[in-house]
């Protein structure tokens, strides 16, 4: 505990090109690039599969298959294959991001797919029945209704990516993983614990940001609560409504 505190409170660790802030920014950089790429792949694919109902089997197999890939092993293979084709840091960066994307796509894809698949068939039918074209049904009904699950896919991907982006350090890149790798090399347990703590804190922070965005983007009508507290206070006669709803 003392070692951890000593390391965290040492001003030298917060300064310079190898200081904590720089590593945090690097770490966030890898994570952000990964999430954007994974979202660009996973969301449209998931929406398309959910909308058309085609390729459902693909989702299940892909998701399970990708989950069982050993991340670190894949990273080394990718570095061996792709590395020689590129030069400098890029030779390590591209494989690292690739591996992280492989990790992030399944939850995002699954979320988008499940979100669209789970839209009330009645709502979809009504949308078509009032003359919406397929693209309008997707944009105006299916996507907004799928938002809660799209977000939960993104959030679980974000947690995994932030936690796993530490592996970039194992192929000599930066990020918070540096503290883990270097700490282990120098048997500096304070640094290792500090790095781990920072990763956890960053993951939580990122999740919090996503939660905030989700609140702004997702319609309150999709939250599971029946009535907001304010509504209940304003509507003391709601009991009768609730009773009627109960019988249906």
């Amino acid at each position: 505990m003392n070692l951890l505190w000593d390391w965290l409170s040492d001003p030298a660790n917060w300064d310079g090109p190898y200081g904590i802030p720089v590593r945090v920014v690097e770490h966030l950089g890898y994570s952000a690039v990964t999430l954007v790429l994974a979202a660009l792949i996973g969301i449209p694919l998931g929406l398309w599969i959910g909308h058309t109902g085609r390729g459902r089997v693909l989702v299940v197999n892909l998701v399970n298959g990708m989950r069982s890939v050993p991340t670190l092993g894949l990273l080394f293979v990718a570095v061996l294959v792709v590395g020689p084709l590129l030069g400098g840091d890029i030779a390590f960066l591209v494989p690292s991001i690739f591996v992280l994307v492989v990790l992030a796509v399944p939850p995002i894809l699954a979320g988008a797919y499940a979100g669209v698949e789970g839209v009330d068939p009645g709502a979809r039918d009504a949308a078509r029945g009032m003359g919406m074209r397929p693209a309008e049904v997707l944009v105006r009904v299916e996507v907004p209704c799928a938002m809660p699950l799209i977000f939960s896919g993104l959030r679980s991907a974000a947690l995994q990516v932030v936690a796993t982006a530490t592996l970039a350090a194992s192929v000599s890149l930066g990020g918070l993983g540096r503290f883990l790798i270097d700490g282990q090399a120098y048997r500096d347990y304070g640094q290792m614990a500090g790095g781990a703590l920072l990763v956890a804190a960053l993951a939580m922070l990122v999740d919090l940001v996503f939660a905030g965005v989700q609140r702004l983007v997702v319609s309150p009508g999709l939250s599971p609560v029946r009535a907001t507290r304010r509504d209940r206070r304003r509507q003391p006669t709601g009991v009768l409504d609730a009773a009627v709803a109960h019988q249906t």
Partner: protein
Amino acid sequence: MISFTDVTKVYPGGTTAVGGLSLVAPTGKITVLVGPSGCGKTTSLRMINRMIEPTSGTIEIDGRDTATLDPNELRRGIGYVIQSGGLFPHRTILDNVATVPLLLGWSRTRSRQVAAELLERVGLAPELGKRYPNQLSGGQQQRVGVARALAADPPVMLMDEPFSAVDPVVREQLQDEFLRLQAELGKTIVFVTHDIDEAIKLGDQVAVLRVGGVLVQLASPAKLLADPHDDFVADFLGRDRGYRGLAFAAAPELPLRDEPVVLLGSPVADGARIAAGDRWVLVVDEARSPLGWAEPEVLTGVIDRHHLHRGGTVARLGGSLRAALDAALSSPSRRGVLVDDDGSLVGTVRAQDVLAAIERRPEGAPA
């Protein structure tokens, strides 16, 4: 006017859902499709707005073959209420109702304004417009479904069991409001239900379908009750057909009796005096609206609301024979209470007089 000409739908797999259906749904009227589960009602309905394409035959709306129209354009001009409601959970009630106007390119302000007017029309408080569908009761949601289908003021409405997901009391209320609304709007409506009572109550004409989508009988409710085409229709209509048929027969002039009345809150002694030896006396309020029957002999003090026998139904003067007969049959005094359109008492009638009126009708006349 919507006309089906020899329309057939065979689903992939070989089920013939609709077999050679020909019928006309006249402009401004309610045509009800009724029949047992799986008889092709929904399929028939959804072929009108081309949610399902017929295998053969033609469907025309005001003389235009729907097959030649763009399906999305067609649907934007037809109100469609689906059974499960199908409200959009992510939109407020107001925005749900405003959906079609917005699709048609109306301004946001105008769409919302129209939506707000419609909410009022279907009997929903304006505050509900700000809520989301999951904050409404089942009955309220079904009203929203109807309002949403009405929003762009389409001349044609398709309604698939719109009131089936609510309990009987609310259903009855929704049906009454629906009829009142239709009296104002005069839409051309095709209405699907598996409930024969609903069909008889709402339909200007009722089409009874048999499994396989075969039309067995197309007739007015009164004609249907009086003269079912075959055993299938008769069985489907169920019991009490003669009595139920009276609902469609306007009561002729009935011999009314002046009924002595006592005001609520009067001393029981007054009631006894007015009853003049009769066991029951009719209690009214200041507007002469009948409140119920009281039995002065067993009461003391003043006549209070909870003293009243409320079993008797009240019939409207000029209403149906069924209502008049039921008023007489349900009254503890055997005298059926008749009121005018404002709900104030005009007199009472006895069952034998209603029966005499029924007897006097020409023989074999549809009720």
